[in-house]
């Protein structure tokens, strides 16, 4: 195998890994503050991407065609919309079930995901067909010895990694981050210390969902196509990544995202006769990792009541 092809696989893996990590971070944040799995995450992401797409259609109609302006407006609109949706889901569907068994929360968000997916398919104009997402980034590329480094991939990866770093700084350096970590550690004590629990929970869900919307736009820009089902697989991969890494841990989510991307790339590289099996391979390895480390590679620190 020549170096160029290898570099191509590597670039592809880094790109996918960043995208998956952005989705997985949301799962891990939600699990941190509320100990719940919000399975509609992937479909909220899809909804955000469609919101961004709608904004793009509006901008085209309004005659604003500078790609950078378009990109910034799409990102702002899509992330704001998704953040609002995430906070609303937390308030009206997740928090009311706080006392119920965790299975119920998982189920209600699974069903919400299905509802969002179906609603987009049925009610978005021509929603059951894939939409061509515009390529707004410069399509220049540098030839590095048989390997084409595309400028848009570089921009996307840098922006995605920047967002994760920013999120990490926010969690560790700001008052909001402190409040989120406090609620994650001990809800009761955090409340008695004067932390506004509701605001922190809603903010966390908003931030996590907004980050996922970024991943959705990234996905759209990279593949130049979005469809109503994109959230299911992305959400599933993000969930698996967060679980493989270990829930409630930001680094675990990032690690899991890159592991999953690596598995997919390795799967398609090593099984050239059957690159269609790459998802089968990746999910099989996820199941194997779960068997080996039942609470993820970086396990959450819990103790069972005896």
């Amino acid at each position, binding site marked *: 195998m020549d170096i160029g092809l290898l570099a191509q696989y590597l670039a592809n893996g880094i790109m996918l890994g960043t995208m998956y990590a952005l989705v997985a971070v949301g799962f891990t944040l939600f699990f941190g503050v509320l100990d719940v799995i919000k399975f509609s995450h992937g479909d909220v992401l899809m909804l955000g991407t469609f919101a961004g797409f709608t904004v793009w259609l509006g901008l085209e109609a309004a005659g604003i065609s500078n790609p950078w302006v378009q990109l910034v407006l799409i990102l702002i609109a899509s992330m704001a919309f998704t953040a609002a949706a995430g906070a609303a889901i937390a308030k009206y569907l997740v928090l009311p079930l706080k006392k119920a068994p965790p299975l119920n929360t998982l189920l209600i968000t699974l*069903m919400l995901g*299905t*509802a969002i*997916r179906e609603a987009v398919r049925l009610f978005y104009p021509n929603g059951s067909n894939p939409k061509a997402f515009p390529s707004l980034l410069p399509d220049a590329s540098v030839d590095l010895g048989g390997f084409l480094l595309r400028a848009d991939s570089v921009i996307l990866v840098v922006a995605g990694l920047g967002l994760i770093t920013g999120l990490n700084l926010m969690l560790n350096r700001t008052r909001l981050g402190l409040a989120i970590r406090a609620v994650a550690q001990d809800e009761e004590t955090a409340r008695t210390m004067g932390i506004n629990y509701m605001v922190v929970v809603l903010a966390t869900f908003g931030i996590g969902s907004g980050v996922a919307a970024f991943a959705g736009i990234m996905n759209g820009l990279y593949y130049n196509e979005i469809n109503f089902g994109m959230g299911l697989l992305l959400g*599933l991969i993000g969930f698996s990544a967060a679980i493989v890494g270990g829930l409630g841990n930001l680094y675990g989510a990032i690690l899991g995202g890159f592991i999953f991307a690596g598995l997919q790339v390795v799967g398609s590289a090593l099984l050239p006769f059957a690159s269609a099996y790459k*998802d089968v391979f990746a999910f099989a390895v996820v199941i194997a990792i779960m068997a080996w480390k039942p609470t993820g590679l970086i396990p959450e620190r819990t103790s069972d009541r005896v």
Partner: protein
Amino acid sequence: MTDIAIDTPSRPKGWLPGVLTILFVAVYSWALLIAEEDWEVMGLIALAAAVVVLGLFTGLGNKVKASWSAHEKPLNLGALIGVLAVIFTLSDQHFPLLMLTTTLLYFLASLGLNIQFGYTGMVNFAGAAFFGAGAYTAAVFGNVEWFPPLLTLVAGGLVAMALGLLLVYPIVRTTGHYAAVVTIAFGVLFKTFLEVNEILGGPQGLMVNSMRLPGWDFNNSPTLFGMEASFYFNYAVFAAILVAVIFTFVRRMERSWLGLHMDAVRLDETAAACFGISIHRTKILAFLSGNLILGIAGALYGMMISFIAPTSFTFSDSLLMVSIVLLGGMGSPWGGAIAAAIVVLLPEKLQILQEYRFLLFAVLVMLVLLFRPDGLLPRQIRNYFPGARNGQ
């Protein structure tokens, strides 16, 4: 916990409310199955809603429940006779029989999932995958000339069980969300595998041979009292009997010490382990037996519709099966019957809803989870002495 208590009705209940319920439900389902116009279906649904409200407010519902728990065996047999009677009255109608059989098979699948979700508290989001494993087994073995089709049915269950065996190790080691991801990953893996695998027909799917018993070819239309019946009649009768057998088996298991172990593991694993219950063994038993039932249901379903493709066994279908269990009420087998009828019949009957069915049931399950988390027909308190009266 009031989950386990000795059920002592204040005074012995007669069998009359139960029998009347069976009669009403039989006539009602007959009417619903042959109703063709939208307004007829709407009227029947409104009638059902009215009866439910009436039953809740006048206490009739409780009378039926008490009557049922006092005379469970004869009334269950009566329900089987009721189903068979409906099948006989519809014997020459293809479509109603197909719907009825599909409902029965989904009910069967919900029984399997019930063992996992309802009794043991394990999650399985790959129900459609195990169902599909049974159907694909039926397709493969059905083409083998010498292989008896009745054994194909069993083989479907065994293959689903064997696939479950692959997951057993991660399943018993993980709990909660972590177990959920194992089954979800498996469900997606299974469907993707079917789509890319050329031997199993790829995305186009496979033809399935029909069921044959010695001297009883299910593809031939039987003649009843000089009238030629639909060939679905065979499947409907066979499915009804199969459901009755497996229903009995599941109820027996629930009532036995196995069921007690499952309940104990669901309610509190630590406490169960302290009392010497092997959590692993209980979970493995529940997972495998549930998958066995799913596989059998899938095999017969494949034989009946005679053509299967990966798109019938997606993650959304798994969720649809979970919503049957949840709508009916966790651990409530009869609830599963009602929910299966709602989930299967409603979209078929109201063609406008067909397109919206996933959306509709997703919203319905969300409402149930928010406002009636026990389901439509919540599980009854455990009855240690079925049919026992006061002072006995």
